Structures are given as C-alpha cells and as structure tokens.
C-alpha cells in the first residue's frame, strides 16, 4: 500500500493548552488518509471536526502527538508553507474566501501568489473552472453569483493551487439542493482526477458519497468504516442523535420486521431493487 498522504498519530489538541483551563477538542486520534481517498467526517458541532481539519494543514498543530502531511511533520515551522500548498481548505461561507472582482481573477489569485508562470496560470484557471463547471461565468463578478456558484468559485480557487488534498468544512451547509448537487459533482470529479478529499458535513446522504466515514463525538473517533458499515449501525447513530439516511432508515425498519431483509442499504436504486425483489417473491405485482 502507498504511503499515507496524511498520517495522524495519537493526536490530542487543546485550545488554551498553556492556561489553567485548557479546552480539549481532540483526544488521542489515530488516522491514515491515503492518496485518492474520499473521507467524510460527521459529528455534532463541538465534536472536534473542524479542529481536526485545521490540524491537516497546520492552521493548528498538535498539543500532543503528531500529524504528518506528505511525510512532513506539521509541528516544524519550516514545513508550514509546503503543507498548506499540499492541503487546500474550503470553508462554510464562500464570501469569506473570495477576494477578486472577476471570477477568473479570483481563481488565479492563489497560483499568482505561488509564483506560477503566466502561461501555466491560464492553463490551471481553465482546468479549475472546467472541473467546477463555471467556465461560462469566468468574467462575471463573484458577489453577484448564487451561493452554490460562489462556493464552486471558492473551490476552483483552491484547486488552482494544485493541492494534493482538499478539505471541505461544511462547504454545502448553506446551499440549496441543486447548488449542493453541483458542488458534490465538482468534488467527485476532482476525486476521480486523483485529488484526495476530506469532507465535513451534517448531511448524511452526502456522507454516503465517500469511501470512508469517520464519526466524531466529544473529541474522539467513535465509529469508522465504509458508509455502509457505519450507517448500518442505526441504533448507535440514533443514540448519538445523528441522522440516518431515510433509505437506510426504511431498510432497517423492514429488516426489524423481516430479518432476511438487508439492513444496510444506502442508495435509492438499491432500496427500490431490493424491495421489488422481495415483493416478487410474494407474487407482487401479480
């Protein structure tokens, strides 16, 4: 197996660590993220999700333990710049992340600051805008775009710096269903292009997009696995007061009444297929 692009070892993080009342936000986290992974982190506000994400690009550094990004320890100051160009971050509210008055200039801002040659900047901006499907809007003013479009511009601005990892911290929280779907499509495309994705979200059906789900509760990792494994544990998720996708909820309820019915269904088509198949055995439709 390849080397992990991000390795987290015994990470404990406390805000105000030096004070008398340190606030411990992460306790003893161990995690390996490999190139090309699509990892989803879920959990309530205050569970430590954003703190963990900020440890991935040295916005925060461990109080105890270590985080390595592409083999570089985040605690070593001299690595900070290289780490931040390896791991790009997209935040909840795109307006805080957009700096220029024209879409393509905003996307060019990052690579310009990295001293990328002009021809390559042009190429990268085109590539980034293609991925997020915003080529047609490249000469528009970002503040007049819809929320979903703005968020896609913010993503383009981050990926134009060619990071190996992109971290999305609730990047779809304030979008409408289509805006959310557009952003997810861009992220999927990016992941297929080989970019490692770490997505933090409260939407459980978005979590189903990933190949791995991590559940944080009170500063610790309490569940981990494929979406199917994690969402199959309906009772535990309920206890944590987290949502279960409606599809899984339905499958689980039927499973409780009919044990041979699978409890770990996730996607709409497979739920439809499975129910139809069981109905056929009963001779329905006749």
């Amino acid at each position, binding site marked *: 197996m390849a080397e992990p692009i991000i390795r987290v070892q015994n990470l404990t993080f406390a805000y105000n660590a030096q004070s008398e009342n340190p606030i411990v936000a992460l306790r003893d986290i161990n995690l390996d993220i490999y190139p090309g992974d699509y990892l989803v982190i879920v959990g309530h506000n205050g569970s430590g999700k954003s703190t963990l994400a900020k440890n991935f690009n040295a916005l925060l550094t461990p109080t105890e333990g270590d985080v390595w990004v592409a083999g570089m320890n985040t605690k070593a100051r001299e690595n900070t710049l290289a780490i931040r160009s390896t791991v790009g971050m997209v935040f909840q509210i795109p307006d805080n992340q957009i700096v220029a008055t024209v879409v393509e200039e905003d996307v060019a801002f990052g690579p310009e600051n990295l001293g990328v040659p002009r021809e390559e900047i042009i190429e990268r901006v085109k590539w980034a805008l293609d991925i997020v499907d915003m080529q047609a809007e490249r000469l528009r003013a970002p503040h007049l775009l819809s929320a979903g479009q703005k968020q896609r511009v913010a993503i383009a601005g981050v990926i134009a710096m060619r990071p190996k990892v992109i971290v999305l911290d609730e990047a779809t929280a304030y979008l409408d269903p289509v805006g959310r779907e557009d952003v997810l499509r861009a992220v999927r495309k990016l992941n297929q292009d080989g970019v490692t994705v770490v997505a933090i979200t409260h939407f459980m059906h978005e979590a189903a997009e990933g190949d791995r789900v991590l559940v944080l509760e009170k500063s610790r990792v309490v569940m981990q696995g494929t979406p199917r494994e994690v969402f199959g544990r309906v009772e535990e998720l309920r206890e944590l007061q987290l949502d279960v996708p409606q599809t899984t909820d339905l499958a689980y309820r039927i499973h409780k009444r009919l044990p041979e019915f699978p409890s770990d269904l996730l996607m709409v088509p497979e739920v439809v297929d499975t129910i139809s198949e069981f109905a056929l055995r009963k001779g329905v*439709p006749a």
Partner: protein
Amino acid sequence: MTVGEPIITVNDLRHTYLRGSPLEVEALKGVNLEVYRGEALGIIGRTGAGKSTTVQHFNGLIRPREKGKVIVFGQDMADPNIDVRGIRQKVGLVFQYPEAQLFERLVGDDVAFGPRKMGLSQAEISERVRWAMNSVGLPFEEFKDRFTFSLSGGEMRKAAIAGVLALRPEVMVLDESTSGLDPRGRKDVLSLIRKGHDEENLTIVFISTNMDDLATLVDRIYVIHDGRTVLSGATREVFAQPEVLRGYGLGVPQITEVMHGLKGRGLPVDERCVSVSQAEEQVWKILSS
C-alpha cells in the same frame, strides 16, 4: 387547514431592488399566496428565488411600492398610515443567521427587548421572558445571565426564536432557521416549532431548502421560482411531482424518491408518502401479504 379568511394575502406582488440603478434586480415578478390561521405553511425555492423578499413584506420590513397588494390582518401594507408596530407584534420573523438578530450582552435582556418595547409591565415582561426561554429549551435561571455571544449556533438560534416568541405573535415566520445547524440542533429547533404550532396554536410560515424537514413539519407548500409562485398544494401533492420540482432546481425527500421508484416497478404503493413511517407501512403491507 385552509378554513375561514386568510390572515395574510399576497396578490401579484412585485419588488425590484436598487430600482433605477445599473445593479437593479427584479426580485419579485408576481407572487401570489395566502396564509390561513393556525396552519403550518412551507415556502420553498432555490436561493435567490424571492422567498425572503416575499416574507419581509409580511411584517412591513419591505412595503409594496410597485404592483401588487399585501394584506396582513386586514391592513393594506402599502398604506403608510397603518399601525406597523401592531403588525410586527402579530407577525414575528426569525432569520437564518441568528447572530444577526441578537445584540444585547445577556441572553435574558435580548429576549426581553421586544416585550420592553411593547411597554408591558415589568412583571409581565419577566413572565413572558421566562416562558419564552423555557419553551425553547434555554432554562430561564440557567441562561438569563449568559453572554449572548458565548452561546453555540443552535442555542443562538433558540435565543432568537425566544425573542420572537416573547412578543406572543400569532404568526411566526422562520427563514431557513434550521440551515447550518448540526443534526441535534436541527431536531431541537424543529420540535420546538412543532410544539409552538400544536400547543400555542401558532401559525407557522417555514422557509427551507431541506425537503425532509418540510415533509415532517408543514401541511401545505408554495414553490417560488424566479420571483413567481409557480406551484402550491398539500405537502404530499407537491412532493408527488418530483419532475416538476427538479425543473425548479428542487428535490423531493429521499423516501418519496424510493416510493416513486416502487410505483414505477408496478408495486401498489401510494407514491405521495413523505415520511419513513408512512413508507414503512406501505412496503410492509406488500411484503406481509
């Protein structure tokens, strides 16, 4: 529950922001809707469709200046001489970003602000603040002296709702009041709204882009698209048209999609299911036959 006269009527409403400037935006191009006493009503649409602009007419934050009429509790909102304060006591608005609505240093003072402005007696104010805070799940004794800005996102939203509840409004308009909250906070706020509706007989106008939340809360839905009302009906009737909704950039609850899929396979299900328990019953009827 559309019985009797509507308490809010919106007729062919138009509104243009920055009129006459190069940045002019025609936000409303013909909105029609009615709100009936005691109902829980949903308004859905993409961001920028005109939902917030519409509801800001309900309590006079925006007045109709162009074509169209807005009647709220019998008052014509275009008439400059009407009692706007009276209307604002009857129609309470909770915004999406609660931090934009809180301004006092202490939570108790913030909730008390509205009732104080109403000129109520001190005893009545305390009574209302205590009741409002307790009913949103911010126990009065525990939270009244907390700093507003030390609250979590969910708590801030509850404090903003308490501030509106303390006015004892008849209509509560919630503009995306569950967006951006974590699942626990979202459930809390939703059940709080439902309680207000069931126990206090509050009329609810709920704006959301979360179809699952809408399905559990509202009886009736209006769809606003590009400044116009384009669809309305009972919640299950509206969600029974997934293709139409998709055309407006909206979706249906996941569970409704499942039921449409089953119907398409020729199974005898009612595709208008909007909750998991309704779907469970339908599917179980087939599998246990």
